[in-house]
């Protein structure tokens, strides 16, 4: 008897959400990191307006990637330390349902941080980032990051070095997201015609889908005992 797929997915998400509302461990850490990172960048770069337009999309995505690394690591460590993962795996549910549940949880938390960064950066850098297309780019990019982040964190959390390995494993594989997302964001910010950045956005979506399919296929192999 297996629990239906979607019940299981929603159960995993609501578990994560409830834990987060109670402990506020994930979003607060990620948000604090993002804030610090933005401040450090704005001091370190001392940008004039032209250079800012060039650099802002890079700053946004680099900050997002590192913040999400923190989040993925923490979320999987919690599962493991509290023995949740083993319990989940013992339960008669589809492995992919667990993956999708964790993925959506990670996605929601990172997206909250990502969305909160936009008004903050608008203030700090004097550029309007509150744009529907930028939000869409962020949503797709973060979804892609969460996909491979969830898979790789599940993997690295079972290794000796744990937290240290996730950045090494994730960053190179996340590069396609970074490349295309930065490109799309830059185009949207610079007010370039849609034809110039929609290709990058489409590519970002396509890569996200490719990784999602790969991860859905491969997840069961990294949680089997």
């Amino acid at each position, binding site marked *: 008897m297996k629990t239906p797929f979607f019940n299981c997915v929603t159960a995993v998400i609501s578990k994560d959400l409830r834990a987060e509302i109670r402990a506020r461990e994930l979003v607060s850490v990620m948000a604090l990191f993002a804030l610090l990172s933005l401040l450090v960048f704005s001091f370190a770069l001392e940008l004039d307006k032209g250079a800012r337009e060039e650099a802002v999309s890079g700053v946004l995505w680099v900050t997002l990637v590192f913040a999400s690394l923190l989040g993925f690591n923490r979320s999987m460590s919690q599962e493991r330390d509290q023995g949740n993962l083993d319990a989940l795996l013992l339960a008669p549910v589809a492995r992919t349902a667990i993956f999708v549940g964790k993925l959506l949880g990670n996605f929601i938390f990172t997206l909250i941080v990502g969305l909160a960064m936009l008004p903050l950066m608008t203030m700090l850098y004097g550029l309007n980032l509150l744009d529907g297309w930028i939000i869409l780019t962020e949503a797709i990019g973060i979804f892609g990051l969460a996909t491979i982040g969830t*898979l790789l964190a599940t*993997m690295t959390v079972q290794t*000796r070095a744990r937290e240290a390995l996730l950045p090494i494993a994730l960053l*190179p594989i996340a*590069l396609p997201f970074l490349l295309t997302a930065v*490109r799309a964001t830059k185009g949207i910010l610079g007010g370039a015609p849609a034809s110039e950045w929609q290709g990058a956005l489409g590519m970002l979506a396509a890569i996200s889908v490719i*990784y999602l399919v*790969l991860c859905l296929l491969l997840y069961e192999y990294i949680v089997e005992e």
Partner: protein
Amino acid sequence: MGGKTKSTTLDLRMETSPQPRLLRILTVFTILGFAGTLVLGFAVAGTDIQQGEIQRIFYIHMPSFFGAFTAFGLTVVGGIIYLARKSETWDRIALAGVEVGLAFSLINLLTGSIWARPIWNTWWTWDPRLTSAAIMCLTYAAYLMLRAGIDDPGKRRAFMSVYGILAFVTVLITLFIIRIVPETIHPVIVGASPQNAQGGFEATSGVVIALLPSLLLWLTLMPITIMWHRVRLEARIEALNLLKLQALSE
């Protein structure tokens, strides 16, 4: 207990037994072929008018990338078959692919850098294609680190199969980066869009013909022969580790 040790020793003996004849033939041909491509590219082929002698490095630079492509591709194949069949041999093939591919892509990266110094007047520039090639190397270096960090053999094989499949995306990105980020100055010799290329040269029939054997060799014989040796070595290492474990538990 004693009987089991003996049988494992026997396995190990078998692995250290003389190489299969096909492997020996392949080894000889790889060495001969490599020597041949060197002669062809470095002695027979003409000197490029604009770039001078350094252009000859191209006869290794580009083929070595495709050698890495074959090796990393075999890592993907090995990963998929391992996950499907749990056959350790295919995991060894995947590992061998990463090691050989990494060495080849290092050759690719370093020869490119050495070419860039006299032609672009710099060892390195943050060109999209150079960057993505460097990241490809780092991805597979991460593979080896990750692999060393997992103790449980079953988990290690499964995880690394998964990672080897995912990592191949960076290889594809390096191949197709000019479509995503067009402002690369890296010359494109095969295929379209040499428009931005800086330091390209005309792929005359002479260049293509001198390149072809080298390309074929790096694409097939080089990775396959070296990987085969590596796979056999890995089998011996694994058998020995098993022996050591048994010796300890006795």
